[in-house]
Every structure is written in structure tokens, then in C-alpha cells.
């Protein structure tokens, strides 16, 4: 039943996305701008990494894509609340977990597709990285999207208006991006900043993807990255499903 319901909801939202080219490509613009206009600044800098600057920057941009893309997915459900679609589905016997999973898996597919485009553009800019590492990176984009999109839907169902939702998301995503070292490795900074950044889950994810991009898979970074990404996803999906079950007031 869960698989039946999830694929039904997933199919509905995939068709919705395919109807809108704008939605498919929107969101990739910002990481592309960083790639084209910020990436070249790093090529000659000592970044304290085993690989070259593209192997440091591109993992960060991939997670930036997921961070900003997935965090704003809640806007769609605010619209669906006002048209009554969410309640209409909640009075059917459909699994509550499927109502969430169908949506977030569509989001994961969308942002992984954008991640592929971003990596192709990065290859043209000079990125060279092992294929397994690149695939691991897509996996992290998918997991992070599932987590953040779940939380985004949960928040959107709680606040209910775009006027409240937008500012909250903005005030969370910017510090998250800066503190997790998506642009430059945090190890370059002072110790206090490096310590602080370990309090954001994204720090562990970006460290893991950077290891993957230089072909080091059996590392402590990878272990922590996978563990944090899975734990975060589990927590977020639990929170999100609760909201679909109880969305009351």
C-alpha cells in the first residue's frame, strides 16, 4: 500500500513538474553563477585540499543547490492548502507517509537532475573527478533534498502564509550556507568558526562529498557524512509525516 500510494502521489507531482519548464530549470541559476563567476577566482588559491579548486567548490555548489531548492518547496503546498487539495487527499485512505514521500521523492528527482546539469557545466569549466565520487555526490543531493523538503512542507503547513514562510526560510538558509563551508572549506578559517560550523548538519555532508570528489571513500568524513545525512532524513521525514497526519489548526 505504501509503495502504491507513494508512486501515485509521486506520479502526480512529476507530471506537475513536467508541465512547467520554469520549475525544472529554476533554481539552477544561482549555483551556475557561482560556478562561472566565483569558481575561476579560486583556481590559483591554496585551499588546503588534496584536489584542485573545482573538486572543492563543486561539492559545495551541489549542496547549495539542494539547500536553497529544497528549503523553498513548501511554497507549493501553501498554494495547495488554499485550493483544498491537501485536505481532499487527507480524507482519502491514502497513507500519510505517502503524501509526504511522493512529494519529496519528486523533489529529490528534480534536484538530482539539476545537479547533473551543474556537474556537466563544471566539467566544461575544468572539473575532473572520479565517476563513483560524482555519483556519491548525487546521492547526497537526493538525501539532503528529502530532508529539507520534508521540513519545508512541515513548516509551510504550520505557518500557512507565504508572507510568514518566505522570511523564515531566508533567515535559516543564508546562515546555514555560510556556516557549513559550502563555498570555501571551513578549515581555512579561525578555530571558532570551524567549531561553530560543526553544529550545522551540512558541514558533515560537504566534507563527505569533497572526499568523494578526490576519490577517498573510506574516510571518517564519509562515515560521519552518511550517518548525519541518514539521521537528518529520518528525523525530517518523521516530523513531516506527523504534520500530514495531524495538520489541524
Amino acid at each position, binding site marked *: 500500500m505504501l509503495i502504491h500510494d507513494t508512486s501515485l502521489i509521486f506520479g502526480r507531482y512529476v507530471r506537475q513538474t513536467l508541465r512547467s519548464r520554469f520549475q525544472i530549470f529554476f533554481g539552477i541559476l544561482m549555483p551556475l553563477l557561482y560556478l562561472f563567476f566565483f569558481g575561476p577566482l579560486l583556481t590559483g588559491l591554496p585551499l588546503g585540499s588534496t584536489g584542485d579548486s573545482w573538486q572543492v567548490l563543486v561539492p559545495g555548489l551541489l549542496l547549495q543547490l539542494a539547500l536553497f531548492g529544497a528549503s523553498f518547496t513548501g511554497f507549493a503546498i501553501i498554494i495547495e492548502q488554499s485550493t483544498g487539495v491537501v485536505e481532499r487527499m*487527507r480524507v482519502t*485512505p491514502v497513507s500519510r507517509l505517502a503524501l509526504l514521500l511522493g512529494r519529496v521523492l519528486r523533489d529529490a528527482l528534480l534536484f538530482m537532475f539539476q545537479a547533473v546539469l551543474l556537474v556537466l557545466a563544471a566539467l566544461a569549466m575544468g572539473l575532473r573527478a572520479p565517476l563513483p565520487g560524482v555519483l556519491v555526490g548525487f546521492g547526497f543531493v537526493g538525501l539532503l533534498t528529502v530532508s529539507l523538503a520534508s521540513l519545508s512542507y512541515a513548516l509551510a503547513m504550520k505557518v500557512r502564509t507565504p508572507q510568514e514562510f518566505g522570511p523564515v526560510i531566508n533567515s535559516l538558509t543564508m546562515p546555514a550556507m555560510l556556516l557549513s563551508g559550502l563555498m570555501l572549506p571551513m578549515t581555512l578559517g579561525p578555530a571558532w568558526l570551524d567549531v561553530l560550523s560543526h553544529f550545522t548538519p551540512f558541514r558533515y555532508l560537504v566534507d563527505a562529498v569533497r572526499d568523494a570528489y578526490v576519490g577517498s571513500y573510506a574516510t571518517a568524513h564519509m562515515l560521519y557524512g552518511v550517518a548525519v545525512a541518514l539521521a537528518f532524513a529520518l528525523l525530517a521525514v518523521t516530523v513531516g509525516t506527523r504534520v500530514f497526519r495531524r495538520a489541524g489548526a
Partner: protein
Amino acid sequence: MVTMPIISTSGLARTFTTKAGPVHAVRSVDLAVMPGEIVGLLGPNGAGKTTTLRMLTTLLAPTGGAATVAGCDLTADPAGVREKCGYVAQSGGVDPHISVREELVTQGRLYRLSKVDAIARADELAAHLGLGELLDRRTAALSGGQRRRLDIAMGLTHRPAVLFLDEPTTGLDPGSREDLWDLVRGLRDDFGTTVVLTTHYLDEADALADRLVVIDGGLVVAEGAPAALKTEHAGSPDASLHETFLAITGRAPAAADPAPVAV
């Protein structure tokens, strides 16, 4: 044999916690609806009508009391309630960018029909509700009356024993309203569907409902057949429902209400 109520509630209540303190949207509602009845929940805005429906359809957990809908306990077996009742919210519930057909088929599949059955059911519902020509239109292209019929078709997908309608004719022109009344009567006459609807249109309550339940301040303040209520509260079965209402709730019709005859 004594017929058992298809819906029964006792002391059903919902309190919302807000920053300004608790809000008792529904204080205590006792209802007994018999199979095949059309019952109108009537009351001023904010009386607790919609909150009551949202509880009976499992959208909102009660904070007090108990209820059984179509043989299923509301709290213990919400999944059973969902399989047996249909709900049409005031806002409807279709995506404006999706075709009538796709919405109807998806709805069928959400009710666990096979793909083939869901497609057949969509055609059947569209024919029954006069939407046959409109199956490939986007729902945004429908008129108000057509939209409302689609919303109801969505709620009837699984042939529910009980249909809940929240303000079904708000915003419709007089012709469409009467079509909708005929449709609701037909559901009861042809399929034995029990219908519980909320309204603040007195003419609608008078014309459609077998029995009225007047809710005010989260409590049932009166109930009975329209004629009985008029006799009891306004002194004559020929009294207007408007006078009856004033006598029951002690309140004049809400001035800001756009309804033609509203309380």
C-alpha cells in the same frame, strides 16, 4: 428492528490552543443521524459547523467526546471512517492546472481502485454529474456550478455511505444552486446516501434538509424538522425560518454576510 444511527456523537468537542488562550470552537455536540437522512447544520459564522465536519471526517482530532461514523469509531478507526465517508470542503480541492479526467482518476486510485476501475469510475461520475463533455478541460476552465459538481464527484468516488458537504452552494448562482439541491436529493433517493451539510442559507436549509441542527457557540441549541422548529420557536409552521432563527439564537442576521438570506 430498530434502525441504528449512521452517525452518532456524544459530547464531541474541539478546543484550539492559541496565543490569546484556549478557543472552544466546538464545546459539546450530540448528534444522531439516521441512514438516508439529509441533515443541515445551521448556524452563524464561527458557530462551529465546519470544525464539527472536520472532526467527523478525520481531518481534525477531537479534544473531547466520542463519535461513530458508518460503524467506525472516529478515534480508534479513522481509516475505516475515511473509507466510508466523502467530504467536500468549501474550497473544493482540485488543482486548477489538472484536467477533470486526471483529477477524477487520481481520486479513484487514492481510494485504491485499480487503474482500469478508476478510469471507468471517472467516466461514470462525469456522466452522472453532467461533466461528460468537460473531462479534458483543465479544472480552472470550469464555471462555478461545474466546479462544484466536480468537487462533489470527487467526494462520491468511492460510493460513500455518508457525504459531508461544507457550504455546498456558497458563491453559486440561483439556477446552479437548485441543480445542486436536486443532485443531493437524488443521491439520497437513488443510492440511499446520508448527507450532512452545513449552510447559512436559510432557504437552502428549508428546501433541502429533512432535519436541521442549529449550532451556536459550539453547542447544539435546537434541532428538528424545519416545520417543527418553526412551530416550536416562532409559534407557527408557516413562520419564516428567519424569524425562527432570531427566536433561537437571539441574533440578527450578520450584516456583512453576502448570502441572500443569511443568519
